[in-house]
Every structure is written in C-alpha cells, then in structure tokens.
C-alpha cells in the first residue's frame, strides 16, 4: 500500500518527533497519514507542506485544573499550543482532543477548557473522554458538554476528506485490576460501522487510553482491543491514536500505525519508572522540551514492528 516516497517522508517525520513541541499534526501523504511534529511544522512550513496537506491536529491531556509542581501553568502551555496551531500557514480543518481535557472533572475546569479550545481557528473539535474527565461521582460533566455527537454514548464516527474517523471510549466500565475496556456493545457498533466500507478507505480511530498494550502494570492498554484490531486488519491504512501516557510511543503492525501523543500539561515517567504514572517534575527551563519527552519507533519497513522508548536530553 505505502510507496517508498511516503515511507521516506514518514521516516523523516518520525525523526522530527524526537524534538520538542506540544501537539501533533497529521498530514495525508500518498494515502498514508503521517504525524509531523508541530513545532517543526510551524517553523518549517515547507517541510510540512511537502508531506501533504494538513488534515487534523491531535491535542491531548490538557489537564485543565492541574496545579502541582510539574506544571503550575497548564493554562499557559495550552495557550501556547493553541497559538502554535493557529499560526500554521494552512489551517487543519479538524482538531481531535484525545481526552483528559480536565484534571478533576470539575465544572469550572470544563468551562475554562471549552473557552480556551474555542480560541482555535479550526472550529471543528472532536473529543473523547479520558478517565480524568469521567471521575465525577455521577459521570455527567463530560457528557453534558460533549455527549451530543454520540447521543451520550461517547463513541461516534464521521467522514472527512475521504477518511473515516471513529471516536471510541475505553475509560468507562473498568474491571478491577484491568486495562481500559471497549466492551461488547461498543465493539458491535464498530463492526456495524465498518461493515460497508471499502478496504481502501483510510481509517483513523482515536481513544484516550492506548489501543495496544504498552505497560500493563500501569493499565497502559485496552484489554479487549485485539477484537478491534481484528476488525480493521482488512483496511489498507489504519491509524490508531491515543493520549493518556503523556509521551510519544509509536508502533506499526501491518497496515496499522499506533501513535501515543504528548500532553500539553506535564510529562509522565517512562513505563515502570517509579511507583506509578505521577506527574513528573523537571527543571522549569526543561519543561517545554519535556512535554516533548519522546518515545519514538523508527519504521524500517511497514511490515516490521519497532517500539523504542527514549528520553531527550
């Protein structure tokens, strides 16, 4: 499916991912969605343009309401992210927020986040909830604001520019000790949603928690995602996006690219470092770069798997 030029572009883009920034731009290049580091895209419009036209920007883990040492100004870093996106020479038509919009699911946090995200020039915002957005006792604050697209189910799909997008929820109905869960009802809905689509339709699936297992002891994965993956194997180009772990980790499996976005708020430790995924405190001058703490997988070939964790000095 992917041709050599697209692979070359992707390899370059993946190298770019190793350097700082606060969001991820996806461009459609040769039918393959390619992530481009936002800071690079902003500073070098030519390189971004050569990869294709901007399709959407993924923002994740804004954690509005967080006020601890790791970043006492999450509003400021979100504002800078918004400025970066708004400064892009060609505006992406869509913004996808992959959850943890707020830190504590409190109404004032949601209100502020919506107000800030409303400053994006791209007005079409698609969201999925993170577990921090559904941590109110009644699990209503997120759905009161963002439930309309899905009749309060949280999962929905739409088409844009020939790409089929599917938004999924994997932060509800947790089982004790378990990973994220999609559940029978949602998976049946996905199966029906995909049934009539041709294998040549590019598919983008986004959810908050990783749709493949990155680190089970911290719940960094989705327990029943193998059933989802089986449903999309017939498609020629599938991109699965998530947030949750506040660092970039990428994997390619056949025609499926898995991509974990950074947070705009604070970094988290690499898998297994420390007692749990706590906010990571770093010297202030390093924070912008640590929001770019990166785990990059450089793809040698579309059929090979490559997963590598690395920190940026």
């Amino acid at each position, binding site marked *: 499916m992917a041709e050599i030029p697209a692979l070359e572009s992707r390899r370059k883009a993946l190298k770019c991912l190793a350097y700082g920034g606060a969001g991820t731009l996806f461009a459609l290049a040769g039918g393959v969605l390619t992530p481009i580091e936002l800071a690079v895209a902003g500073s070098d419009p030519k390189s971004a343009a050569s990869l294709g036209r901007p399709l959407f920007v993924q923002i994740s883990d804004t954690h509005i309401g967080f006020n601890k040492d790791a970043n006492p100004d999450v509003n400021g870093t979100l504002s800078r992210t918004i400025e970066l996106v708004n400064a892009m020479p060609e505006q992406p038509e869509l913004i996808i927020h992959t959850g943890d919009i707020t830190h504590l699911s409190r109404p004032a946090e949601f209100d502020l986040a919506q107000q800030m995200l409303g400053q994006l020039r791209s007005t079409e915002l698609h969201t999925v909830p993170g577990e*921090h957005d559904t941590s109110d006792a009644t699990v209503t604050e997120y759905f009161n604001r963002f439930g309309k697209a899905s009749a309060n189910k949280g999962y929905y799909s739409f088409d844009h520019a020939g790409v089929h997008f599917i938004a999924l929820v994997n932060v509800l109905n947790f089982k004790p*000790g378990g990973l994220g869960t999609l559940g029978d009802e949602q998976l049946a809905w996905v199966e029906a949603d995909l049934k009539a689509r041709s294998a040549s339709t590019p598919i983008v699936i986004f959810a908050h928690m990783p749709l493949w297992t990155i680190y089970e002891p*911290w*719940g960094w994965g989705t327990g029943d995602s193998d059933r989802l993956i089986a449903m999309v194997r017939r498609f020629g180009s599938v991109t699965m996006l998530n947030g949750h772990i506040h660092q970039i980790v990428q994997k390619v499996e056949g025609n499926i690219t898995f991509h974990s976005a950074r947070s705009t708020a604070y970094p988290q430790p690499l898998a297994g470092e420390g*007692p749990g995924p706590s906010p990571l405190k770093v010297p202030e001058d390093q924070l912008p770069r640590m929001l770019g703490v990166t785990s990059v997988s450089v793809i040698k070939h579309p059929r090979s798997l490559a997963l590598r964790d690395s920190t940026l000095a």
Partner: protein
Amino acid sequence: MSFTVIPMRRAPAPALRALLGAAMLAMAAVTATTNARAADAAEVDPAQIVMKDFMFAPAALSVKAGATVTWRNQDNEPHTVASDTGLFRSGALDTNESFTFKFDKPGTYHFLCTIHPYMVGTITVQ
C-alpha cells in the same frame, strides 16, 4: 497487611448521622459525596485507608457492621474510590482530600480507583 492509625476525631452531629443512615441505600453516590465533604468536620470510626504510591493501604480491611471507612489521598495525583457493584463512588479526590462510606451490612466489598483501575482493595464487613 498494615493498618494506618489515625487520631480520634469529634463525634458527628446526631442529625447528620441520621440523615446519612436514612439516605444511604437509596442514594449511595449522592450521600457519599455529601458525607465526604462532611468528613473533615465529622467524627468517623477509626478505619482509614490511604491512597499512596498508587496503592490502597491497607488493601484489605475488616470492620464491623455500621463502621464508617475513610479513604484519604496522599498522592500527588487524583484518585477515586468506586465499588465494583456501584454501591459507592467518590468523585475525584485531589491530594489530601478524603471520601467516607458507612458499611451497614456484613459482606465483602471490592473497590477500585476509576482513574487507575489496577488500584484495588477489599473491605470485609463482619
């Protein structure tokens, strides 16, 4: 298994205790939230579970029927406490915030943190 010892606190107002008891079964979640907010001012039975380093400690606790259990978050990351049957569910607890629930009936109650579902624990009510 380790138990956390907490100092004795003042007794709750009788009216509050009556209200909590009456509303417990019908409106567990709402009552529990109210109860959590009242926890700092009210007496609770000395049964406390702390949330620290992404663990409940103790992870297993035995209490007598009628006992009130308090969960207190000592991490720099929010946690929640939720029964696997839906009997009780806290909102997000930020650092040093707490949640309480009164266990009236004997039985075994499993709970988890809905933000970090690998954090689990059990209350045995005798």
